[in-house]
């Protein structure tokens, strides 16, 4: 059960993510489903992935956006519950929580409750050759960039 004291980790062999221009895109490499978390959701994801508790994240976002921390905490619990249901988060793996994320620019500092958007339309396209460096066993490859086509 997700509570404000919960901490999480990202299963690195199964989940890949990248934040581009304030939007985090997450791919579940196991089933090809991918997700978008724009705005506050993107900040929340990065903070969750850093191993902070939801209460700690609520305090950070509350200060950034001037929103009561209990409101933010409730949104975070709801978001984390969705992320766990989608198998995007696992148990905390003791991630390094050092380092602050940069503040968004003043024009962007409007709080909107994080909203996870799921896209299930490309699972078959990504099934054959998922970009899964963590899954593939590498038997001492030379690392050549001049590899055969195939």
């Amino acid at each position, binding site marked *: 059960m997700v509570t404000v004291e919960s901490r999480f980790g990202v299963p690195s062999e199964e989940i890949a993510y*990248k934040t581009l221009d304030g939007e985090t*895109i997450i791919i579940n490499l196991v089933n090809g489903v991918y997700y978008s978390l724009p705005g506050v959701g993107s900040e929340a994801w990065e903070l969750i992935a850093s191993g902070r508790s939801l209460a700690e994240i609520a305090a950070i976002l509350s200060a950034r956006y001037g929103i009561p921390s209990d409101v933010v905490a409730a949104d975070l619990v709801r978001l984390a519950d969705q992320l766990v249901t989608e198998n995007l988060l696992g148990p905390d793996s003791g991630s390094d929580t050092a380092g602050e994320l940069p503040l968004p620019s003043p024009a962007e500092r409007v709080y909107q409750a994080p909203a996870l958007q799921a896209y299930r339309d490309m699972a078959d396209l990504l*099934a*054959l050759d998922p970009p899964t460096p963590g899954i593939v*066993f590498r*038997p001492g490859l030379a690392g050549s960039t001049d*590899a*055969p086509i*195939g």
Partner: protein
Amino acid sequence: MTTSDSIPGLVSCIVPVHNGARFLGEALASIAAQRYQPREIIVVDDGSTDDTARVASESGVPLRYLRQEQSGGPSARNHGMRMSRGSFFAFLDADDRWHPDKLTIQMARFVARPELDISLGHVQNFWMPEVDAERIKLAGHRRAAPIPGYTASTLVARREVFDRLGPFKAEMKHGEQTEWFLRARESGAEIELLPDVLLERRLHGDNVSRHKAEASLAQYFELLRGHIERVRRNDPVPPLPP
């Protein structure tokens, strides 16, 4: 289903290859063994420095051998299409093998469904001895079972589809096939994925996907981001210039 269900001799088979001498002969033999005989087989040698040219010439398979400076797999596929004469395109990577009935099955589908633009099948991976540890590790894994084959090597497509959508993006070194299939899907092309295993995909120590996994991940993120934006705008991907 027999060859009489479809019109023979319409397919150009394009085999891009770079330093693929080790397995090219097997790939070509699997095309030659097709019950549905293609119109032509075109080997596009992408700047190989090994025995690729000799293997092609000594394969005993009637083919056209084209050579280009090394520009990557998508560029080689595009070059093969430009030089081809068939009404349909099929591709085979030089380390993989087609099922003997691949073209028979797929060309029959174009007869049965005149509206069909693109036919695809499933892929069965197989492992060479040098990566046997991977085979053991993946026993029971979904990658050891037949996988939906959104890849050029299972594809048979009408020439008109490439005329309409444009070729593979030659500047992409990985993920260009996913990008093309995404373009096809977003354009409303009629795509059929058959349940049949039509391709045996060889996993060995030099698969490009092993070397490029990190780079391909970055390109997938760009692809997905563009797709998400178009879905939000309900705006299909524009075709590339031919």
